[in-house]
Structure formats: structure tokens, C-alpha cells
């Protein structure tokens, strides 16, 4: 009952536009502001009928909680996200949320390093925009396969973000993975107060390792197949270290953001 703002929202889809080949930016008008925190997510209904049955989770990419405008950045990964890509402006979108714990320490003044791998940059963008607005220091690192797999610079300008990019083929920014860029940054720059990361699992494992090795508190946002999203079904369990044993925690409710040191990446 801690999250009284959780409600169902019948949003109006204001715009759905391709950002890269398979990334789509949805701009929604919610009837009420969700007042979401960066790292929280919503659950989208994909259509009427019962196939697909389950909602799909998407991080909040940005919320203008005064205007009640919401943005989701969606990568087409399968049949469900393909439906989202096909949504058309003017359509009503059935959305629940916000769910989950956001990134912690939102007001911390120490410099935060935000590390996004591919579409994993979606929630970090919200975090970065918030820190920018509040004048809190941060660096935003984003990795992708190639220049074309990441949004153009203009995409970030709306919130005066200037992320450092890394591409595996070196076609834009640093040549290499975003974790290599992170290591490079840690070698060359001052030690940040905290690392926040979101992206594919191997990348998060590496970021958590880097953070641990250097004693930098690191939080990672995990993914899992969700059903209920409220913590009731135990479907989204992910293994964690606890007192030498493995314990399952719920990505939807206990996370999706977790202390990187506790996540059991090995399994």
C-alpha cells in the first residue's frame, strides 16, 4: 500500500516515431501524472483479446509530471513489442503503473555515473534529465553496436544531455563496449560517488564487477519475464547472494533496480 499513486491509466498516444531502425519513441498523455521516479516502469496492454495475454513492462523514459506527459522508448524484440511499434497516434493506450523501486539516492550530490547499454539507456535518460534539472552532477555513458544503432545527438538536446557514446565498431564516439568506456573513464577521471547501470545482463555483470573492484556503490536495473508486476506471483524471481546462499528476489517489486553486489550474476 506504499504506492498509492499506482493506478490504471487510459493514455492518449500523442506520437509514435521511429528513433532508430527498431527503437520507437512513444509520447503519451496520461489522465493524471504518474509522478514516477527514474527506474520505475509501466505495464502496457498490447491490445484487446487475450493473445498476447500479458502486459509488457517498459521503463519510464521521461515524465513531465506537470503536463502528465510520459515517454517510453521501445525496442522491437518480439511479437509484443512489434505491436507497440505499430500503435498509431490518437490511439488509447491502456497502461498501469508506475511499478517498482526506482534508482536510489535521487538527491545525492556526489557525481553519478550512468551507464546504459543499448535500449538500457531508456530509464537512465530519465535519471539524467532529472539530475540535469536539479543541478546534480553526473556523466552519462551509452554503448551501442554502431552509430546508427543509437539516437542522433539531437535526441538528447531536449534535456541538455550530452552522453558519451561508445560503439563496438567505433563508428561513433569511443571504440569499444560501454564497459570499456566506463573503465577508461574511471582510469582517467575522478572516482564517482555511485554507478547506475541498465542494459544486457553480461554488461551489468561487468559493471557490477568494476564497481565492486573499485569500491564504488553500483546499482543495476534488471529484466525478467513479468506477470503480475506487483510482487504477487513470484514469476520474475532473480537469484541473489544472501549469507552465502542463493535467495530469489522479485524483479518487479524488490527491483528492478538492485545493489549490484548482491545480484547473483553467475547462475
Amino acid at each position, binding site marked *: 500500500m506504499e504506492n*498509492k499513486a499506482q493506478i490504471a491509466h487510459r493514455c492518449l498516444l500523442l506520437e509514435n516515431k521511429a528513433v532508430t531502425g527498431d527503437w520507437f519513441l512513444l509520447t503519451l498523455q496520461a489522465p493524471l501524472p504518474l509522478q514516477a521516479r527514474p527506474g520505475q516502469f509501466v505495464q502496457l496492454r498490447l491490445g484487446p483479446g487475450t*493473445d498476447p495475454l500479458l502486459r509488457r513492462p517498459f521503463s519510464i523514459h521521461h515524465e513531465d509530471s506537470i503536463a502528465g506527459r510520459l515517454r517510453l522508448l521501445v525496442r522491437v524484440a518480439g511479437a509484443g513489442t512489434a505491436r507497440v511499434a505499430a500503435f498509431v497516434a490518437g490511439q488509447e493506450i491502456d497502461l498501469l503503473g508506475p511499478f517498482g523501486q526506482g534508482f536510489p539516492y535521487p538527491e545525492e550530490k556526489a557525481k553519478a555515473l550512468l551507464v546504459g547499454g543499448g535500449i538500457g539507456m531508456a530509464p537512465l535518460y530519465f535519471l539524467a534529465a532529472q539530475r540535469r534539472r536539479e543541478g546534480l552532477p553526473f556523466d552519462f555513458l551509452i554503448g551501442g553496436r554502431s552509430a546508427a544503432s543509437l539516437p542522433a545527438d539531437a535526441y538528447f538536446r531536449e534535456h541538455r544531455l550530452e552522453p558519451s557514446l561508445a560503439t563496438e565498431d567505433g563508428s561513433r564516439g569511443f571504440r569499444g563496449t560501454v564497459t570499456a568506456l566506463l573503465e577508461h573513464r574511471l582510469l582517467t577521471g575522478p572516482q564517482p560517488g555511485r554507478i547506475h547501470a541498465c542494459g544486457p545482463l553480461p554488461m551489468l555483470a561487468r559493471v557490477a564487477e568494476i564497481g565492486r573492484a573499485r569500491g564504488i556503490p553500483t546499482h543495476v536495473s534488471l529484466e525478467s519475464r513479468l*506477470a*503480475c508486476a*506487483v*510482487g504477487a506471483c513470484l514469476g520474475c*524471481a532473480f537469484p541473489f547472494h544472501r549469507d552465502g546462499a542463493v535467495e530469489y528476489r522479485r524483479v518487479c517489486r524488490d527491483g528492478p533496480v538492485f545493489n549490484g553486489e548482491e545480484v547473483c550474476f553467475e547462475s
Partner: protein
Amino acid sequence: MKADPRLAVNLAGIAMRNPLIAASGCYGYGFDYAAWVDPAEWGAIVVKGTTLRPRPGNPPPRIVETPSGMLNAIGLQNPGVEYFLETISPRLNALGCPAIVNIAGETIAEYRAVAGLLDGAPGVSGVEVNISCPNVQCGGISFGCDPAVVEELVRQVRGAYRGPLLVKLSPEAGSLTEVARAAERAGADALSLINTIRGMVIDVEARRPVLENLTGGLSGPAIRPVAVRAVWEVAGAVSIPVVGLGGITSAADALQFILAGATAVAVGTANFVEPYAVREIKAGLLGYLAKNGLKHYRELIGAAKT
């Protein structure tokens, strides 16, 4: 919570405001959805399957979507009956509706032990014996298919637990009505059906089953016709009340089960899609009663003509 008397029901000794029950494993201990709907909206809530010892549950992935349904292989993750009694059951009165504890075990002795510990426990209005969980290796579904084993199991549990006793059946029992009659003979106060049906999804790119447990239990609208048929068969074969479930998402779905003979209905998977389902189903039932000039939903129980 203003309850409408047209939906009130006493199920096997449990006084419920309405015939809608939150299905086991789909509603945690009743509190997780509280930001969405007041738990007291429900007639009763069946809490997560509880075992003698704590169970960590299965490694992920535990769920996978299927056409109009989903498979789950949670593996009965639960903190064990002792923790439940110490920490959870004292809070259950706060739900504002009866809480029924779903129990499972690997041996008949374990079932009996769990039931015995729950006997008289505060906050516990009844016990639902899960003899049909498809995701536990020892015991589980094998218990639920043999009428003789079911009779012995239920008799043992009955001996240990004096409150309202529900027995939850699998539709996979070759002879469902015989299993149902065995449970009735052994002293069950009501039967719940159906539990999930065992299924598998293979990831053709990875070339292996999606679920780490290989198989899981199929729930959701996909199984609804099988569940309605099972309720119809069993309601015609026993004289104790039946709780119908399997793919209920709407008042019309719930009415199918009631017309087939269910005294109450439970909602599982649909909560995941629509947390307000309970409220909409209640409103729909009342609308149906009004439209058809009926005074109480009870007039509809088993009323389907053939």
C-alpha cells in the same frame, strides 16, 4: 466496503461477501495488490501454497506466455508454515476478507503436519489442499490422479484440521469424478478446480525449453473451456460445493462456471492483466442479476440447461 447481499455466500462454512476468490499463487498473501483494490473487495483470498519447510522455488525463467495463457513453474516458493504462522497469519485479519491457506507437501505426512499446524491459527479461515501442483517433483500431481491416494491424503488432513477444508483438483486426473468423490468421502467440505495443466514451450532459437523447470502449469483463458467442463462434470458428481476457476477474466466467464455448478469462482491469471478484475466481475454479476430479475446469484448455480 458496502457488500451487496445478492452476492453473499457461505462456502463450506466460510462466510463470504461475494463468491469471488483470489486464486492461490496469484495474489501473494493478499496485500500486493492493495494499491489497486482493497483486498476486502474479494469474497476470500487463497494465499500462496505453503509447505512444512521453506522452499526457495525454482530457478528462473519461471514463466512464459502462451496463446491466451501462460505457463508457470514457481516451484512453490514459500517461507514455510512456521514463518507463515509467526509473521504472516497474524496480519491476515487486516485483509478484511477471509484468508484460506493453500497447502502442499511431498508426502501425506507433510500435508497432515502443515494442516495440523494451521488448525485454529488466527487469521486462517480455511485450508485448501493442493494435490495438483504440476511443478513439484515429489508428490504434486501424482497425488492428485489416484482416487485411493487422494482419499487417504484428504482423510489424514481432515484428521488434523477441523476448519473448512477445500481440496484442489487437477483436470489431468484420468478419472476426475472418481477423484472428486474420493475427496468428498474423505471429508472435504468443498472442491476447487481446476489447477493448471502441464505444458511446455520450447525456445526454438536456443533449442531448449524456456522454463528452467522444463514444464510448467498452463493457466489463463486458454484453459477456460477445459475448466468449465471439469466443473460441470464434478458438480454433477458430488454434493459438496465446488469452486470453479481457470481463465476467468469477466463476469460472463464467471457466470459460465456458476451455471456449470460452481458455488464460488476464483480468479488467478486475470489479475496480472487487469488488477481491477474483481471489481468489474462483481459489477457485471450484479448487472446480470438485475437484467434477469434475479434476487441472488445462488439461483444461477448449476442452472445451465442441457
